[in-house]
């Protein structure tokens, strides 16, 4: 976690801009913004080890400062979601998206 914070100043300008912070798992189709924090507890009992999840998310491009947009939602329970992360498209379940904190851009 401390490492995430040490990177934070770089993105301080972005964070200060506008919009509410929240987990990516609550995002709806069409919402966009910036990733502000990756990692931490998802609060879901069935999730894998938080540190492992954090590393996997990072490896798939979910990194602090990356721009995101929710492109698609699944039919059942709006899950999984397809997210544009910078210029890539990644599909993931909301369960894992809960470990990504984002700052939403105001519409």
């Amino acid at each position: 976690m401390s490492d995430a914070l040490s990177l934070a100043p770089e993105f301080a300008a972005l964070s200060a801009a506008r919009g509410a912070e929240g987990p990516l798992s609550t995002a709806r189709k069409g919402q966009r913004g910036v990733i502000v924090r990756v990692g931490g507890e998802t609060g879901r009992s069935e999730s894998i080890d938080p540190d492992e999840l954090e590393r996997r998310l990072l490896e798939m491009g979910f990194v602090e400062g990356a721009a995101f947009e929710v492109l698609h939602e699944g039919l059942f329970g709006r899950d999984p979601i397809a997210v544009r992360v910078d210029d890539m498209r990644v599909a993931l379940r909301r369960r894992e998206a809960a470990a990504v904190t984002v700052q939403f851009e105001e519409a």
Partner: protein
Amino acid sequence: MTDTVASRPARLALVGNPNSGKTALFNALTGSRQKVANYAGVTVERKEGVLTLPGGRGAHLLDLPGTYSLRARSPDEIVTRDAVLGKLSGETAPDVLICVADATNLRLVLRLVLELKQVGRPFVLALNMYDIAQRQGLRIDLERLSAEIGAPIATTVATRKRGLDELIDKASILAASHAGAHENVWREPTAAEIRAAHAEAQRIFKACVRPPERPDTVTGKIDAVLLNPAAGLLILGLLLFVMFQAVFTWAEPLMGLIETGFAALSAGVAAVLPDGLLQSLITDGLIAGVGSVLVFLPQIVILFFFILVLEDSGYMTRAAFLMDKIMGGAGLHGRAFIPLLSSFACAIPGIMSTRVIDNKHDRLTTILVAPLMTCSARIPVYTLIIAAFIPHTKVWGVLSLPGLVMFGLYATGIVSALLVSFVIRKIFWRGTVEPFMMELPTYRWPEPRNVLMNLWTRARIFIERAGRIILPLMILVWVLSTFPYPPEGAAGPAIDYSFAGRIGHFIAPVMQPIGFNWQMTVALIPGFAAREVAVAALGTVYAVGGDDEAGTNLGHLLAGQWSLATALSFLAWYVFAPQCAATLGVVKRETNGWTWPTVMFLYMTGLAYLASFTVYHVAVALGAG
């Protein structure tokens, strides 16, 4: 370097992200000079090809499984990591790594490149799909990028065979000079180190890559339709429908041809060899056995054709996205979709393709339920019984009753597979749920040559591996159904006196409560060779002539001998019973032991007995006894 080192073939290995066109590059570089096997001790596919370097030196090229990181998680990725580090048992360390990157999607691969740099093995970066990058107006400062990553770069278009010479030139120079080689300093990165590497990759990216002037917008437009929650599922359903139609209708003439071919071969051998044991072993054991499996090759090839086209185009990940919630509800991983789909043709390629699933429990669950999918070997059994017992009446004026029963049998298979995996994941293997995280690649036209080469590889693997497992089993079943011989002047079919017959008679009392007579029980034993063999075996036990009309005659005969309750019970048995020794053999191979084939055998037999018992007694109670 001494002459001996320079003259032995160089060892090259391809690494890269999934969807980077790595396999296309491998195919383009090695052509038909490929060998597919397994890595020692693990069931990860090892693809190696041979090529000649400029100057005449030979080289072995290894196609390593795609990965985003050397921090391996799945068996596939562990192979990649260990091969790159030179720690893979039974493998010599590669001299040069060729890191394959999709030129239009460099962000993540640059971080992998930074990891490779730590390994200290000379490497060259292949910027593949460079034509697409150029068309998009994406500018890459190759000189600067090469300086930043400390490795030579070649731009390639694998599907057009462009840039291959340049790539091989650069790799062979490295193989000779070992320039840039140093001690391995790679170790599993922490989250902080991954972040730092990302930042560094981002810096390199910004310094060397100018964003495309005409970025791809087609993928987004296609996804708007294909990933639309309702329309997407509908299109997927239609696609699967077309696929199954093709698998079953296109394959039919070819299957007929194979059957006729094997029958002719068998007749030819019978004409040459004298009657007796050798003739019987070759015709009834070997030729009939191999034929009964090879007959599924057309269906498997057609199915894999669709799967490869869908994979190459980028649609397969979308299908996994659409199916994830449905599969996930049953405790299955989204990636289990493809193996289970393949299992409709035959569980063997299905089980072999579960290798794409990272997590061990996810993979085992998929393997365990794959045989519940209605494979095409069940069709001859289903058709025989349905034709003999289910009247051709219309339901609601349009649907035919036999068609409905067939549909019901398929649906029962699917629903029970989902239920079984649900029970496994919610009761036996609770714990954590493997994340579902997948890149959705840009849509591309599948390259016909590449699809055909991969198809050829798939078919070869099926023939080789299945053949190796199936052949000994076929001989075993033949021995059981042939020995001992009936006594002189014995009445009744010879199989009745064999081990198979005796086993059948022995277990007949156990099968009686589910409505099976001893003839059926005896037919089940050779039916272990392959499900559809039971049809022929029933013919043998009821001593029906082997002419072309055997099917219809047998149907008539069965209709006279069995009650409807017995017939329905037999159908229920075939939905669940592990009536396929080859599947159990493949499971043993894929799981490295007898534990899981045993578990599979026991649970499926248990389910089959339970289902048949219920169906039989309900049917009898309803007056169908």
